């Protein structure tokens, strides 16, 4: 297993720039997710690491060695594709053993390593079957076994869960993380699904339009988004226009029309200068309060419930205060507020983050 470095990588297709100058360091053994909407360049980055695309500029290092001129079949990578990409004319065991024949593995060891890989993905008994006889989830496990049996330097996962249905996806998510943990391989995971990224990653690289928006742990990108794009892409956020009126060691003061002054913790408003600013308030941090609720420590306002989107465990409200519409996702205590009613809304200032208006 090895570290991966992208140094000033640029990828252009004709006149179109798919990846703008990007540098990325992925330490050995880490699980890093490239997250972003389709067309953000995440798959392009993955394919450049894999050797399926050549970078237009810059350098790719795996384990400290320059890889630009090394063809894919000499890079020793494990790749898992969205659509499994199993060889339909080979049995499961032959699929998994495929990479071993190019690696001088003694014949006697091949069978035991194949079996160990199948055990690891918890499908020890399907070796003699053909891929099409397995379910989608099973096929993806076999694809994973095939990729890790060669003990790759880096494991590359290209939206491996997207083709599975919802329940299976969550199981596979846990499973994938367990296996990655167990073998400790450096992993680059590409997804457009924020919950996958948050659940699995050591580090998330949020990308948009060919640029890196933010690199951080799941908590960092979730709680302290570096841009309005990140705030919106990871969960639902309210972004309010305001002004920064001053700061001290603990807090930054943000003036927001309907709420007055909000003291945002200084570490969640780094580099913010006085002037126009954006306040980011996550939908699940905005609470709708009953008449008897305790409002101490909260910044509150009166609002009208416009839309109620009932989701069982939670409910999503759209509330209106004057010109502004806000989104709130609340757990349901007793029963949801009804459309048209006037409620008190409130949030804790320490749950907010602030960004410079650009």
């Amino acid at each position, binding site marked *: 297993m090895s570290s991966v470095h992208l140094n000033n990588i640029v990828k252009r297709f004709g006149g179109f720039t798919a990846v703008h100058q990007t540098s990325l360091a992925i330490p050995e053994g880490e699980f890093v997710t490239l997250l972003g909407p389709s067309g953000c360049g995440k798959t392009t980055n993955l394919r450049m690491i894999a050797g399926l695309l050549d970078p237009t500029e810059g350098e790719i290092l795996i384990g400290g060695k320059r890889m630009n001129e090394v063809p894919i079949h000499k890079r020793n990578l494990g790749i898992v594709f969205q659509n499994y*990409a199993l060889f339909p004319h080979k049995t499961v065991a032959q699929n998994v053993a495929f990479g071993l024949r190019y690696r001088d593995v003694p014949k006697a060891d091949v069978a035991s390593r194949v079996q160990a890989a199948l055990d690891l993905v918890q499908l020890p008994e399907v070796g003699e079957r053909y891929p099409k006889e397995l379910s989608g989830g099973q096929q993806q496990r076999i694809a994973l076994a095939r*990729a890790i049996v060669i003990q790759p330097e880096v494991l590359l996962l290209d939206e491996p869960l997207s083709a599975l249905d919802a329940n299976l996806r969550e199981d596979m998510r846990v499973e994938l993380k367990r296996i990655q943990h167990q073998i400790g391989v450096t992993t680059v995971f590409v997804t457009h699904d924020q919950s996958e990224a948050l659940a699995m990653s050591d580090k998330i690289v949020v990308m948009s339009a060919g640029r890196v928006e933010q690199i951080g742990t799941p908590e960092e990108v979730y709680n302290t988004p570096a841009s309005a794009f990140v705030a919106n892409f990871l969960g639902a956020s309210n972004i309010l226009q305001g002004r920064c009126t001053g700061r001290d060691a603990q807090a930054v003061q943000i003036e927001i029309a309907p709420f007055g002054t909000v003291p945002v913790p200084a570490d969640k408003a780094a580099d913010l200068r006085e002037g126009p600013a954006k306040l980011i308030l996550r939908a699940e941090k905005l609470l709708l309060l009953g008449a008897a609720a305790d409002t101490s420590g909260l910044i509150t306002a009166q609002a009208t419930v416009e839309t109620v989107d009932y989701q069982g465990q939670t409910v999503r409200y759209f509330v209106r205060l004057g010109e502004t519409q806000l989104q709130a996702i609340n757990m349901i205590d007793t029963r949801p507020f009804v459309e048209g009613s006037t409620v008190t809304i409130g949030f804790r200032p320490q749950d907010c983050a602030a960004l410079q208006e650009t």
Partner: protein
Amino acid sequence: MGGLGWNLIRGWAILVYIFMFLPVAVVVLLSFNASQFGSFPMTGFSFRWFVELANNDAILRAFRTSMILGFLTAVISTTLGVLASLALVRYRVPGASLISTLLIAPILVPEVVLAVALLLFLNFLSINKSFALLLAGHVIFTLPFVILVVQARLVSIKRDIEEAAMSLGASPMQTFFQITLPLMLPAVLAGGLFAFTISFDDITGTLFWKPGGVETVPTQIFAMLRNSISPEINALGTVMIVMTVGLPLLGVAIARQMTRKGGI
């Protein structure tokens, strides 16, 4: 539904089929006729025309020529067709759609025109007629069939299967022989059989291109018919029908079997 209209259409369809297949059936039937004269009623059942066929040197020579020509046409056409399909489907070739059209064009051009054109071209280059020229001509007009069949199959083989093989350490060449070729083998075999069959019963182009003294089975039949209608020809016709109908059917059956086993 039902009613007079539908019954008329049904009856008409049956008449059309009879019109198309009755002559063929007559040839097959008469090839087993014991009598010297090809006419009904048949006087008895016999294999004598097949035996005479097997003893006729001219026909045997023509048969051997046809087999060799068909086999070489199939091998060359299939090889070229696979390579062309790979280039057109898997790689960015400048002018790919133009090349594709040109490769398919021999299907659309009347065979006589193609035959004359090739002959004039070679005349212009002062090259004499030869077996190699005949073979080249057959390759030209069987190639489109191979390309159409192989291309369709290749498109359905996902690129990421090949990418997966390469990521596991197979070079592009190894990937082709381990993954791509086995997966498109049914189409390659079907294409080869098409090529063989088309070459085997071609007459138009062959009449133009064949060098003096060389006869294929169709041109031999044609030559024999100019003298008299011998019952041997019926027997030969039956053999031709078995080969040109049976082989593609066999090919399709094999392809289907392989596809079923291989998944997808």
